[in-house]
């Protein structure tokens, strides 16, 4: 029996089943806190710990899935290209806004990490928290963060933005459609974008557009600003 664990089938199948369960629970409850990815990660971890299966066995299959993240990050250019007309219309405000937001994200993590006195390795892992997971993982790898922790924090940030984002827009009196979309997309990437789509078509498109640009901005900004952590 244990021989079956030595094939990639185990890790791939466990991931697929866990994600399907995550989607079912998320759809049934319609609770934004029950994000399918977060649920799937928890299910796999509980399964491995519960049956005492070493992570190396899971990784045999997991690494197959991880491989596809590279090509998936490249094709993030497609949604960006599709929204190019919208970007051209308000080029400067959007670009400056996303850059300001990305700096705010990185600087707030640095300052708050110092304030709360959290571990340097944890703080570093949190730097790419507002960008899409594919890019955030790569940034984390590049700067010596704990990649899995970055993934978890990125998903948590997405959920937070989706849950409190619309309320924040009201609170801060951000009423412009473009500004609303860019704000949610820059703060909380794809998970926030799903919420922005509910606010309106322009908000959804703008939020989607911000994912790629915020990703590139953060890639450039993190190495410049992270020296402040030390």
């Amino acid at each position, binding site marked *: 029996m244990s021989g079956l664990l030595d094939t990639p089938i185990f890790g791939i199948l466990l*991931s697929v089943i*866990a*994600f399907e369960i995550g989607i079912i629970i998320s759809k049934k409850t319609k609770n934004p806190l029950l994000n399918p*990815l*977060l649920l799937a*990660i928890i299910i796999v971890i509980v399964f*491995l*710990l519960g049956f005492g299966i070493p992570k190396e066995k*899971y990784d045999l299959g997991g690494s197959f*899935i991880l491989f596809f*993240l590279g*090509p*998936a*990050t*490249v*094709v*993030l250019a*497609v*949604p960006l*290209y*599709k929204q190019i007309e919208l970007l051209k219309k*308000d080029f*400067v*405000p*959007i670009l400056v*806004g*996303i850059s300001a*937001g990305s700096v*705010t*994200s990185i600087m707030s993590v640095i300052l708050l990490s110092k304030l*709360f006195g959290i571990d340097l390795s944890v703080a570093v892992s*949190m730097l790419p*928290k*507002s960008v899409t997971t*594919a*890019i955030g*993982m790569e940034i984390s*790898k590049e700067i010596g963060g*704990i990649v899995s*922790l970055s*993934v*978890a*924090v990125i998903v*948590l*940030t997405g959920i937070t*933005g989706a849950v*409190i984002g619309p309320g*924040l*827009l009201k609170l*801060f009196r*951000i009423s412009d459609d*473009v*500004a*609303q979309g*860019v704000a949610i997309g*820059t*703060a909380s990437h*794809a998970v926030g974008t799903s919420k922005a789509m509910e606010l309106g078509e322009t908000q959804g498109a703008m939020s989607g557009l911000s994912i790629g640009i915020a*990703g*590139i901005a953060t890639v450039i900004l993190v190495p410049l600003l992270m020296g402040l952590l030390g």
Partner: protein
Amino acid sequence: MKVLRQFGTILVILLLGEGIRMSTGISIPGTVIGMVILFILLMTKVIKLENIDMISKFLLDHLAFLFVPAGVGLISSLDVIGSAWLPIMMIVIISTVLVVGVTGWTVQLLKGRRS
């Protein structure tokens, strides 16, 4: 065969991105360089959308699933999170409030001034 050719196209771009990263030693991930290359190729019409549409749709539709193994890596750092989960959550929430505010205000201000 169409999807296979599209996948091949994306892999060539990815390889190019990794190659540029390795040969220049810049601290930008090869995947992100690949994304910029594809964007430029689309803008200059060297690659048409229909040459990569199927593989793009497949990958983007299943993007969230692809992160499962990455997240499962948390299993090796459960002790770190166990002791720091509260400050981590606080930072995520406070930072999200700030980013939404700063980004939204900046865009609104700059747009308003122009029109």
